[in-house]
Protein backbone atom coordinates (compact mmCIF):
# COMPACT_ATOMS: atom_id res chain seq x y z
CA UNK A 1 0.00 0.00 0.00
CA UNK A 2 1.30 3.44 -0.81
CA UNK A 3 1.78 5.87 2.03
CA UNK A 4 -1.37 8.09 2.20
CA UNK A 5 0.50 11.37 2.25
CA UNK A 6 -2.28 13.43 0.62
CA UNK A 7 -4.85 12.22 3.10
CA UNK A 8 -2.48 12.90 5.99
CA UNK A 9 -1.65 16.43 4.87
CA UNK A 10 -5.32 17.11 4.47
CA UNK A 11 -5.83 16.14 8.11
CA UNK A 12 -3.38 18.85 9.28
CA UNK A 13 -4.80 22.20 8.11
CA UNK A 14 -1.95 24.17 9.73
CA UNK A 15 0.44 22.87 7.07
CA UNK A 16 -1.55 24.49 4.32
CA UNK A 17 -0.44 28.07 4.92
CA UNK A 18 2.04 30.54 3.59
CA UNK A 19 4.82 32.32 5.47
CA UNK A 20 6.10 35.43 3.69
CA UNK A 21 4.11 34.29 0.67
CA UNK A 22 5.90 30.94 0.59
CA UNK A 23 4.47 27.56 1.57
CA UNK A 24 5.20 26.61 5.18
CA UNK A 25 7.70 23.76 5.49
CA UNK A 26 7.43 22.60 9.08
CA UNK A 27 10.61 20.81 10.12
CA UNK A 28 10.49 21.39 13.87
CA UNK A 29 8.68 18.19 14.78
CA UNK A 30 11.15 17.23 17.49
CA UNK A 31 10.03 20.37 19.36
CA UNK A 32 6.34 19.69 18.85
CA UNK A 33 4.20 18.00 16.23
CA UNK A 34 1.08 19.45 14.64
CA UNK A 35 -2.36 18.10 15.52
CA UNK A 36 -4.69 16.31 13.11
CA UNK A 37 -8.36 17.31 12.90
CA UNK A 38 -9.31 14.08 14.67
CA UNK A 39 -7.48 15.20 17.82
CA UNK A 40 -8.85 18.74 17.80
CA UNK A 41 -12.41 17.58 17.20
CA UNK A 42 -12.09 15.05 20.03
CA UNK A 43 -11.03 17.89 22.35
CA UNK A 44 -13.79 20.11 21.10
CA UNK A 45 -16.46 17.40 21.47
CA UNK A 46 -15.29 16.73 24.98
CA UNK A 47 -15.45 20.35 26.07
CA UNK A 48 -18.67 21.15 24.21
CA UNK A 49 -20.64 18.02 25.11
CA UNK A 50 -18.98 15.84 27.74
CA UNK A 51 -17.06 17.98 30.23
CA UNK A 52 -17.32 17.06 33.93
CA UNK A 53 -14.96 16.29 36.77
CA UNK A 54 -13.97 12.67 37.04
CA UNK A 55 -14.14 9.95 39.68
CA UNK A 56 -16.32 11.82 42.13
CA UNK A 57 -19.69 12.56 40.61
CA UNK A 58 -22.94 10.66 40.89
CA UNK A 59 -24.31 12.31 37.80
CA UNK A 60 -24.38 11.18 34.20
CA UNK A 61 -21.72 13.52 32.77
CA UNK A 62 -19.24 12.76 35.51
CA UNK A 63 -19.67 9.03 35.09
CA UNK A 64 -19.30 9.37 31.33
CA UNK A 65 -16.18 11.57 31.61
CA UNK A 66 -14.65 9.10 34.08
CA UNK A 67 -15.29 6.25 31.66
CA UNK A 68 -13.69 8.15 28.77
CA UNK A 69 -10.69 9.10 30.89
CA UNK A 70 -10.15 5.52 32.02
CA UNK A 71 -10.71 4.22 28.48
CA UNK A 72 -7.92 6.55 27.37
CA UNK A 73 -5.66 5.10 30.05
CA UNK A 74 -6.46 1.60 28.83
CA UNK A 75 -5.83 2.56 25.21
CA UNK A 76 -2.45 4.05 26.05
CA UNK A 77 -1.55 1.00 28.14
CA UNK A 78 -2.37 -1.23 25.16
CA UNK A 79 -0.52 1.08 22.78
CA UNK A 80 2.78 0.71 24.63
CA UNK A 81 1.90 -2.84 25.72
CA UNK A 82 1.88 -2.18 29.45
CA UNK A 83 0.67 -5.14 31.44
CA UNK A 84 -2.00 -3.14 33.25
CA UNK A 85 -3.67 0.23 32.85
CA UNK A 86 -2.77 1.02 36.47
CA UNK A 87 0.82 1.36 35.27
CA UNK A 88 -0.08 4.46 33.23
CA UNK A 89 0.29 7.68 35.23
CA UNK A 90 -0.94 10.83 33.54
CA UNK A 91 1.39 13.82 33.87
CA UNK A 92 1.86 17.17 32.14
CA UNK A 93 4.58 15.76 29.92
CA UNK A 94 7.92 14.00 29.84
CA UNK A 95 9.58 16.62 32.03
CA UNK A 96 7.02 16.17 34.78
CA UNK A 97 7.20 12.40 34.42
CA UNK A 98 10.95 12.47 35.03
CA UNK A 99 10.63 14.93 37.90
CA UNK A 100 7.92 12.80 39.49
CA UNK A 101 10.12 9.73 39.36
CA UNK A 102 13.20 11.59 40.59
CA UNK A 103 11.24 12.98 43.54
CA UNK A 104 9.70 9.69 44.64
CA UNK A 105 12.95 7.76 44.14
CA UNK A 106 14.96 10.24 46.18
CA UNK A 107 14.59 8.33 49.50
CA UNK A 108 16.14 5.28 47.78
CA UNK A 109 19.21 7.21 46.73
CA UNK A 110 21.80 7.68 49.44
CA UNK A 111 25.33 8.88 50.00
CA UNK A 112 27.75 6.79 47.98
CA UNK A 113 25.10 5.74 45.45
CA UNK A 114 25.29 6.48 41.74
CA UNK A 115 22.70 7.58 39.21
CA UNK A 116 23.64 7.09 35.56
CA UNK A 117 22.58 9.34 32.71
CA UNK A 118 24.10 9.65 29.24
CA UNK A 119 25.98 12.43 27.48
CA UNK A 120 23.12 12.83 25.00
CA UNK A 121 20.31 13.51 27.48
CA UNK A 122 17.89 16.41 27.16
CA UNK A 123 18.10 18.73 30.19
CA UNK A 124 14.78 17.28 31.33
CA UNK A 125 16.31 13.86 31.86
CA UNK A 126 19.52 15.26 33.33
CA UNK A 127 18.80 18.16 35.67
CA UNK A 128 16.19 16.35 37.85
CA UNK A 129 18.79 13.62 38.53
CA UNK A 130 21.53 16.18 39.06
CA UNK A 131 19.37 17.88 41.69
CA UNK A 132 18.43 14.63 43.46
CA UNK A 133 22.09 13.56 43.54
CA UNK A 134 23.08 16.91 45.02
CA UNK A 135 20.34 16.65 47.63
CA UNK A 136 21.16 13.07 48.56
CA UNK A 137 24.95 13.33 48.32
CA UNK A 138 24.99 10.77 45.54
CA UNK A 139 27.10 10.78 42.38
CA UNK A 140 25.78 11.48 38.91
CA UNK A 141 27.82 9.47 36.41
CA UNK A 142 27.72 10.15 32.68
CA UNK A 143 27.75 7.42 30.05
CA UNK A 144 29.77 8.87 27.14
CA UNK A 145 28.99 8.73 23.43
CA UNK A 146 31.08 7.57 20.50
CA UNK A 147 32.14 9.89 17.67
CA UNK A 148 29.11 8.92 15.56
CA UNK A 149 26.71 9.83 18.36
CA UNK A 150 25.96 6.29 19.46
CA UNK A 151 26.16 5.35 23.12
CA UNK A 152 29.40 3.81 24.43
CA UNK A 153 27.96 0.52 25.65
CA UNK A 154 31.33 -0.81 26.86
CA UNK A 155 31.68 2.19 29.12
CA UNK A 156 28.10 1.75 30.30
CA UNK A 157 28.90 -1.83 31.24
CA UNK A 158 31.83 -0.62 33.35
CA UNK A 159 29.69 1.98 35.13
CA UNK A 160 26.97 -0.52 36.02
CA UNK A 161 27.86 -1.35 39.61
CA UNK A 162 25.85 -2.34 42.68
CA UNK A 163 25.95 1.29 43.85
CA UNK A 164 23.90 2.38 40.81
CA UNK A 165 20.30 3.08 41.77
CA UNK A 166 18.99 3.99 38.33
CA UNK A 167 19.99 4.42 34.70
CA UNK A 168 18.09 7.22 32.94
CA UNK A 169 18.57 7.12 29.18
CA UNK A 170 16.81 8.52 26.15
CA UNK A 171 15.19 6.25 23.56
CA UNK A 172 16.02 8.63 20.68
CA UNK A 173 18.33 11.64 21.02
CA UNK A 174 16.49 14.91 20.30
CA UNK A 175 19.72 16.44 19.00
CA UNK A 176 21.58 13.61 17.27
CA UNK A 177 18.70 11.38 16.25
CA UNK A 178 20.52 8.34 17.62
CA UNK A 179 18.18 5.44 18.36
CA UNK A 180 19.58 3.76 21.43
CA UNK A 181 19.39 -0.04 21.61
CA UNK A 182 17.15 0.22 24.65
CA UNK A 183 16.38 -3.49 24.90
CA UNK A 184 20.07 -4.33 25.01
CA UNK A 185 20.80 -1.48 27.43
CA UNK A 186 18.04 -2.61 29.77
CA UNK A 187 19.29 -6.21 29.63
CA UNK A 188 22.82 -5.06 30.55
CA UNK A 189 21.44 -3.00 33.42
CA UNK A 190 19.07 -5.64 34.75
CA UNK A 191 21.90 -8.17 34.75
CA UNK A 192 23.53 -5.87 37.30
CA UNK A 193 20.28 -5.25 39.15
CA UNK A 194 19.90 -1.65 37.95
CA UNK A 195 16.42 -0.35 37.03
CA UNK A 196 16.05 1.79 33.89
CA UNK A 197 14.02 4.87 32.97
CA UNK A 198 13.62 5.44 29.25
CA UNK A 199 12.95 9.04 28.11
CA UNK A 200 10.58 8.38 25.24
CA UNK A 201 9.83 12.01 24.33
CA UNK A 202 11.24 11.43 20.83
CA UNK A 203 11.04 7.64 20.80
CA UNK A 204 7.26 7.40 21.04
CA UNK A 205 6.67 9.15 17.71
CA UNK A 206 9.21 7.35 15.54
CA UNK A 207 9.09 3.66 16.33
CA UNK A 208 6.89 1.04 17.95
CA UNK A 209 7.12 1.06 21.74
CA UNK A 210 6.60 -2.15 23.68
CA UNK A 211 7.58 -1.58 27.29
CA UNK A 212 7.35 -5.25 28.23
CA UNK A 213 9.43 -6.43 25.31
CA UNK A 214 12.13 -3.82 25.96
CA UNK A 215 11.89 -4.53 29.68
CA UNK A 216 11.69 -0.88 30.80
CA UNK A 217 11.00 -0.23 34.46
CA UNK A 218 9.84 3.29 33.55
CA UNK A 219 9.01 4.96 30.23
CA UNK A 220 8.16 8.66 29.98
CA UNK A 221 6.65 10.54 27.04
CA UNK A 222 4.64 13.62 26.03
CA UNK A 223 1.41 13.77 24.06
CA UNK A 224 2.36 16.81 22.03
CA UNK A 225 5.30 15.09 20.36
CA UNK A 226 3.05 12.37 18.94
CA UNK A 227 0.39 14.61 17.35
CA UNK A 228 -1.56 14.90 20.62
CA UNK A 229 -2.42 17.89 22.83
CA UNK A 230 0.08 19.88 24.86
CA UNK A 231 0.01 19.53 28.62
CA UNK A 232 -0.54 15.76 28.74
CA UNK A 233 2.12 13.15 29.20
CA UNK A 234 2.65 9.71 30.62
CA UNK A 235 4.88 8.02 33.11
CA UNK A 236 4.70 4.28 32.64
CA UNK A 237 6.03 2.44 35.67
CA UNK A 238 6.09 -1.23 36.34
CA UNK A 239 3.47 -2.03 38.98
CA UNK A 240 5.94 -3.54 41.46
CA UNK A 241 7.90 -0.28 41.36
CA UNK A 242 4.91 2.03 41.61
CA UNK A 243 3.61 0.10 44.62
CA UNK A 244 6.91 0.45 46.46
CA UNK A 245 7.51 4.13 45.75
CA UNK A 246 5.82 6.84 47.84
CA UNK A 247 3.23 9.33 46.51
CA UNK A 248 4.37 12.48 44.71
CA UNK A 249 1.85 15.24 45.37
CA UNK A 250 -0.93 15.25 47.90
CA UNK A 251 -4.62 16.10 47.69
CA UNK A 252 -7.65 15.37 45.54
CA UNK A 253 -8.00 12.04 43.86
CA UNK A 254 -4.86 10.51 45.37
CA UNK A 255 -6.41 10.37 48.87
CA UNK A 256 -8.19 7.34 50.27
CA UNK A 257 -9.14 8.60 53.71
CA UNK A 258 -8.29 11.79 55.56
CA UNK A 259 -8.49 12.80 59.20
CA UNK A 260 -6.73 15.75 60.79
CA UNK A 261 -4.22 13.32 62.24
CA UNK A 262 -3.33 11.34 59.15
CA UNK A 263 -4.30 10.32 55.63
CA UNK A 264 -4.13 7.11 53.68
CA UNK A 265 -3.56 7.09 49.96
CA UNK A 266 -5.45 5.73 47.02
CA UNK A 267 -4.48 2.73 44.91
CA UNK A 268 -2.59 2.90 41.62
CA UNK A 269 -2.66 4.85 39.39
CA UNK A 270 -4.54 7.49 41.43
CA UNK A 271 -1.84 7.52 44.10
CA UNK A 272 0.19 9.56 41.59
CA UNK A 273 -2.60 11.76 40.23
CA UNK A 274 -3.31 14.49 42.78
CA UNK A 275 -5.88 17.14 41.88
CA UNK A 276 -8.22 17.29 38.91
CA UNK A 277 -6.47 15.58 36.01
CA UNK A 278 -6.19 16.76 32.40
CA UNK A 279 -9.14 14.68 31.18
CA UNK A 280 -9.35 16.37 27.78
CA UNK A 281 -5.61 15.91 27.32
CA UNK A 282 -5.85 12.20 28.09
CA UNK A 283 -8.66 11.53 25.66
CA UNK A 284 -7.00 13.81 23.10
CA UNK A 285 -3.86 11.71 23.43
CA UNK A 286 -5.92 8.58 22.85
CA UNK A 287 -7.28 10.18 19.66
CA UNK A 288 -3.73 10.99 18.54
CA UNK A 289 -2.53 7.43 19.16
CA UNK A 290 -5.55 6.07 17.31
CA UNK A 291 -4.67 8.32 14.39
CA UNK A 292 -1.04 7.15 14.40
CA UNK A 293 -2.13 3.52 14.64
CA UNK A 294 -4.47 3.98 11.69
CA UNK A 295 -1.54 5.17 9.52
CA UNK A 296 0.81 2.66 11.18
CA UNK A 297 3.90 3.61 13.17
CA UNK A 298 6.07 1.27 11.05
CA UNK A 299 4.84 2.99 7.88
CA UNK A 300 5.51 6.40 9.43
CA UNK A 301 8.98 5.25 10.44
CA UNK A 302 9.78 4.06 6.89
CA UNK A 303 8.45 7.32 5.41
CA UNK A 304 10.45 9.49 7.81
CA UNK A 305 13.62 7.49 7.21
CA UNK A 306 13.25 8.15 3.47
CA UNK A 307 12.99 11.87 4.20
CA UNK A 308 15.99 11.73 6.52
CA UNK A 309 18.08 9.82 3.98
CA UNK A 310 17.17 12.23 1.17
CA UNK A 311 17.83 15.31 3.30
CA UNK A 312 21.12 13.90 4.58
CA UNK A 313 22.52 13.02 1.17
CA UNK A 314 21.48 16.36 -0.35
CA UNK A 315 22.81 18.33 2.59
CA UNK A 316 26.15 16.53 2.39
CA UNK A 317 26.57 17.99 -1.12
CA UNK A 318 26.77 21.50 0.33
CA UNK A 319 30.32 22.64 0.91
CA UNK A 320 31.43 22.84 4.52
CA UNK A 321 28.49 20.93 6.04
CA UNK A 322 29.05 19.03 9.27
CA UNK A 323 26.31 16.64 10.37
CA UNK A 324 26.10 15.82 14.07
CA UNK A 325 24.85 12.33 14.77
CA UNK A 326 25.72 9.73 12.18
CA UNK A 327 24.87 6.60 14.11
CA UNK A 328 23.70 3.68 12.02
CA UNK A 329 20.40 3.60 13.87
CA UNK A 330 18.99 7.07 13.54
CA UNK A 331 15.55 8.64 13.32
CA UNK A 332 13.70 11.85 12.77
CA UNK A 333 16.40 14.42 13.36
CA UNK A 334 19.07 16.08 11.21
CA UNK A 335 21.42 18.33 13.17
CA UNK A 336 24.08 20.24 11.27
CA UNK A 337 26.36 23.23 10.94
CA UNK A 338 27.90 24.91 7.93
CA UNK A 339 31.46 26.14 8.28
CA UNK A 340 31.69 29.84 9.00
CA UNK A 341 27.93 30.27 9.38
CA UNK A 342 26.20 30.80 12.70
CA UNK A 343 23.15 28.54 13.21
CA UNK A 344 21.08 31.56 14.24
CA UNK A 345 21.80 33.33 10.92
CA UNK A 346 20.90 30.24 8.93
CA UNK A 347 17.71 29.63 10.95
CA UNK A 348 16.62 33.25 10.56
CA UNK A 349 16.97 33.18 6.78
CA UNK A 350 15.28 29.77 6.52
CA UNK A 351 12.37 31.23 8.48
CA UNK A 352 12.12 34.04 5.94
CA UNK A 353 11.80 31.35 3.27
CA UNK A 354 8.98 29.58 5.11
CA UNK A 355 11.13 26.79 6.49
CA UNK A 356 10.71 26.19 10.23
CA UNK A 357 13.74 24.65 11.91
CA UNK A 358 15.18 24.89 15.39
CA UNK A 359 18.53 26.47 16.13
CA UNK A 360 20.55 26.53 19.34
CA UNK A 361 21.56 23.97 21.92
CA UNK A 362 18.28 21.98 21.84
CA UNK A 363 18.20 21.83 25.65
CA UNK A 364 21.29 19.66 25.62
CA UNK A 365 24.06 22.05 26.64
CA UNK A 366 26.41 19.39 28.06
CA UNK A 367 26.13 17.53 24.75
CA UNK A 368 27.05 20.74 22.91
CA UNK A 369 30.08 21.06 25.22
CA UNK A 370 31.06 17.47 24.41
CA UNK A 371 30.83 18.23 20.70
CA UNK A 372 32.75 21.49 21.20
CA UNK A 373 30.03 23.68 19.66
CA UNK A 374 27.43 26.13 20.97
CA UNK A 375 24.53 24.99 18.85
CA UNK A 376 23.32 23.46 15.62
CA UNK A 377 20.55 23.87 13.09
CA UNK A 378 18.10 21.02 13.48
CA UNK A 379 15.57 19.86 10.92
CA UNK A 380 13.23 17.21 12.32
CA UNK A 381 10.66 15.24 10.39
CA UNK A 382 7.10 14.15 11.01
CA UNK A 383 4.62 11.86 9.31
CA UNK A 384 3.29 14.66 7.08
CA UNK A 385 6.56 15.92 5.61
CA UNK A 386 7.31 15.22 1.96
CA UNK A 387 10.28 14.77 -0.35
CA UNK A 388 9.23 18.02 -2.06
CA UNK A 389 9.62 19.76 1.27
CA UNK A 390 13.08 18.26 1.67
CA UNK A 391 13.95 19.81 -1.71
CA UNK A 392 12.59 23.21 -0.64
CA UNK A 393 14.57 22.95 2.59
CA UNK A 394 17.81 22.16 0.75
CA UNK A 395 17.24 24.97 -1.76
CA UNK A 396 16.58 27.38 1.09
CA UNK A 397 19.78 26.31 2.85
CA UNK A 398 21.74 26.90 -0.36
CA UNK A 399 20.14 30.32 -0.83
CA UNK A 400 20.90 31.29 2.78
CA UNK A 401 24.50 30.13 2.48
CA UNK A 402 24.89 32.25 -0.65
CA UNK A 403 23.65 35.31 1.24
CA UNK A 404 25.80 34.70 4.29
CA UNK A 405 29.11 33.85 2.65
Amino acid at each position, binding site marked *: MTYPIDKIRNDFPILNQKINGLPLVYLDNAATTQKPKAVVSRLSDYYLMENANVHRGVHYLSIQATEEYEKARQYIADYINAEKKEEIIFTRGTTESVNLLARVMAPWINKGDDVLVTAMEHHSNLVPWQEICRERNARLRIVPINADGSLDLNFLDKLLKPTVKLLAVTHISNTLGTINPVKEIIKLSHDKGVPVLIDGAQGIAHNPVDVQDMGADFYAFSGHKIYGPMGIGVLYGRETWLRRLPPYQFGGEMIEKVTFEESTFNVLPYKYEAGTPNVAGAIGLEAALRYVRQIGIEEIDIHEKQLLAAATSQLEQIEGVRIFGTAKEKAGVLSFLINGIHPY*DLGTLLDQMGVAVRTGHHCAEPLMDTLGITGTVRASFGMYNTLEEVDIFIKAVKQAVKMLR
Partner: protein
Amino acid sequence: MTIKEKQQEVIDAFSMFDEWMDKYAYLIELGKDLPLADEKYKTNQYLISGCQSRVWLQAEMKDGKVILKADSDAVITKGIVSLLIDIFSGHTPDEILNADWDFLDKIGLKEHLSPTRANGLSSMIRQIQLYAKAFQIKNNSN
Protein backbone atom coordinates in the same frame (compact mmCIF):
# COMPACT_ATOMS: atom_id res chain seq x y z
CA MET B 1 23.06 64.53 12.77
CA THR B 2 20.53 64.06 15.53
CA ILE B 3 19.31 60.64 16.58
CA LYS B 4 16.00 61.40 14.91
CA GLU B 5 17.66 62.30 11.62
CA LYS B 6 19.75 59.15 11.68
CA GLN B 7 16.65 57.09 12.35
CA GLN B 8 14.92 58.70 9.39
CA GLU B 9 17.89 57.75 7.20
CA VAL B 10 17.56 54.13 8.24
CA ILE B 11 13.81 54.19 7.65
CA ASP B 12 14.41 55.64 4.18
CA ALA B 13 17.02 53.02 3.39
CA PHE B 14 14.74 50.17 4.46
CA SER B 15 11.74 51.58 2.60
CA MET B 16 13.59 50.97 -0.66
CA PHE B 17 13.59 47.22 -0.06
CA ASP B 18 10.49 45.40 -1.29
CA GLU B 19 11.87 41.95 -0.68
CA TRP B 20 12.78 40.44 2.67
CA MET B 21 15.93 39.20 0.99
CA ASP B 22 17.20 42.70 0.27
CA LYS B 23 16.50 43.74 3.83
CA TYR B 24 18.50 40.85 5.22
CA ALA B 25 21.24 41.26 2.63
CA TYR B 26 21.57 44.86 3.84
CA LEU B 27 21.73 43.76 7.50
CA ILE B 28 24.32 41.12 6.60
CA GLU B 29 26.44 43.74 4.84
CA LEU B 30 26.14 46.05 7.84
CA GLY B 31 27.14 43.15 10.07
CA LYS B 32 30.21 42.37 8.01
CA ASP B 33 31.30 46.04 8.21
CA LEU B 34 30.75 46.50 11.92
CA PRO B 35 33.86 47.96 13.59
CA LEU B 36 34.56 45.14 15.94
CA ALA B 37 34.85 45.74 19.60
CA ASP B 38 38.33 45.10 20.85
CA GLU B 39 38.92 41.41 21.64
CA LYS B 40 39.51 42.33 25.26
CA TYR B 41 35.85 43.33 25.56
CA LYS B 42 34.58 40.00 24.29
CA THR B 43 34.22 38.63 27.79
CA ASN B 44 31.28 37.53 29.89
CA GLN B 45 31.22 40.95 31.53
CA TYR B 46 30.05 42.52 28.27
CA LEU B 47 27.94 39.60 27.10
CA ILE B 48 24.24 40.36 26.74
CA SER B 49 22.02 37.66 28.09
CA GLY B 50 18.92 36.52 26.24
CA CYS B 51 20.60 36.09 22.88
CA GLN B 52 20.92 32.78 21.09
CA SER B 53 23.88 34.28 19.33
CA ARG B 54 26.44 35.92 21.57
CA VAL B 55 26.49 39.72 21.64
CA TRP B 56 29.10 41.81 23.41
CA LEU B 57 28.29 45.46 23.96
CA GLN B 58 30.74 47.90 25.49
CA ALA B 59 30.37 51.63 26.21
CA GLU B 60 32.60 54.49 27.28
CA MET B 61 32.25 58.22 27.76
CA LYS B 62 34.21 60.55 25.51
CA ASP B 63 33.71 64.36 25.65
CA GLY B 64 30.29 63.91 27.20
CA LYS B 65 29.17 61.43 24.55
CA VAL B 66 28.49 57.73 24.82
CA ILE B 67 30.67 55.66 22.48
CA LEU B 68 29.27 52.19 21.85
CA LYS B 69 31.13 49.21 20.45
CA ALA B 70 29.84 45.74 19.88
CA ASP B 71 30.39 42.38 18.33
CA SER B 72 28.42 39.19 17.78
CA ASP B 73 29.21 35.73 16.51
CA ALA B 74 26.14 35.81 14.23
CA VAL B 75 26.24 38.18 11.29
CA ILE B 76 22.54 39.14 11.23
CA THR B 77 22.70 39.95 14.92
CA LYS B 78 25.83 41.97 14.19
CA GLY B 79 23.90 43.85 11.51
CA ILE B 80 21.13 44.68 13.94
CA VAL B 81 23.49 45.84 16.68
CA SER B 82 25.45 47.79 14.08
CA LEU B 83 22.25 49.62 13.11
CA LEU B 84 21.72 50.56 16.75
CA ILE B 85 25.31 51.73 17.16
CA ASP B 86 25.18 53.86 14.01
CA ILE B 87 22.18 55.64 15.45
CA PHE B 88 22.98 55.94 19.13
CA SER B 89 26.76 56.02 19.46
CA GLY B 90 28.23 59.52 19.76
CA HIS B 91 25.27 61.05 21.57
CA THR B 92 24.87 62.27 25.11
CA PRO B 93 23.19 60.07 27.72
CA ASP B 94 20.21 62.48 27.77
CA GLU B 95 19.76 62.25 24.01
CA ILE B 96 19.86 58.45 24.15
CA LEU B 97 17.43 58.23 27.05
CA ASN B 98 14.98 60.64 25.40
CA ALA B 99 15.08 58.88 22.03
CA ASP B 100 12.14 57.11 20.45
CA TRP B 101 12.58 53.49 19.43
CA ASP B 102 9.58 53.23 17.13
CA PHE B 103 11.81 53.36 14.06
CA LEU B 104 12.26 49.62 14.63
CA ASP B 105 8.55 49.11 13.84
CA LYS B 106 8.89 51.22 10.72
CA ILE B 107 11.73 49.14 9.26
CA GLY B 108 9.94 45.86 9.92
CA LEU B 109 12.23 44.66 12.68
CA LYS B 110 9.49 44.68 15.27
CA GLU B 111 9.20 40.92 14.85
CA HIS B 112 12.61 40.75 16.52
CA LEU B 113 11.51 42.76 19.52
CA SER B 114 9.63 40.14 21.48
CA PRO B 115 11.68 39.24 24.54
CA THR B 116 11.82 35.59 23.55
CA ARG B 117 13.34 36.23 20.16
CA ALA B 118 16.68 34.57 19.92
CA ASN B 119 18.66 37.61 18.78
CA GLY B 120 17.77 39.54 21.92
CA LEU B 121 17.14 42.90 20.26
CA SER B 122 15.22 44.00 23.33
CA SER B 123 18.20 43.04 25.53
CA MET B 124 20.49 45.15 23.36
CA ILE B 125 18.17 48.14 23.66
CA ARG B 126 17.91 47.71 27.41
CA GLN B 127 21.69 47.49 27.69
CA ILE B 128 22.23 50.69 25.67
CA GLN B 129 19.73 52.48 27.89
CA LEU B 130 21.40 51.10 31.02
CA TYR B 131 24.80 52.38 29.91
CA ALA B 132 23.29 55.80 29.16
CA LYS B 133 21.54 55.87 32.52
CA ALA B 134 24.75 54.92 34.35
CA PHE B 135 26.73 57.67 32.61
CA GLN B 136 23.96 60.18 33.29
CA ILE B 137 24.01 59.40 37.01
CA LYS B 138 27.79 59.61 37.05
CA ASN B 139 27.69 63.01 35.25
CA ASN B 140 25.15 64.40 37.66
CA SER B 141 27.13 63.32 40.70
CA ASN B 142 30.35 64.90 39.43
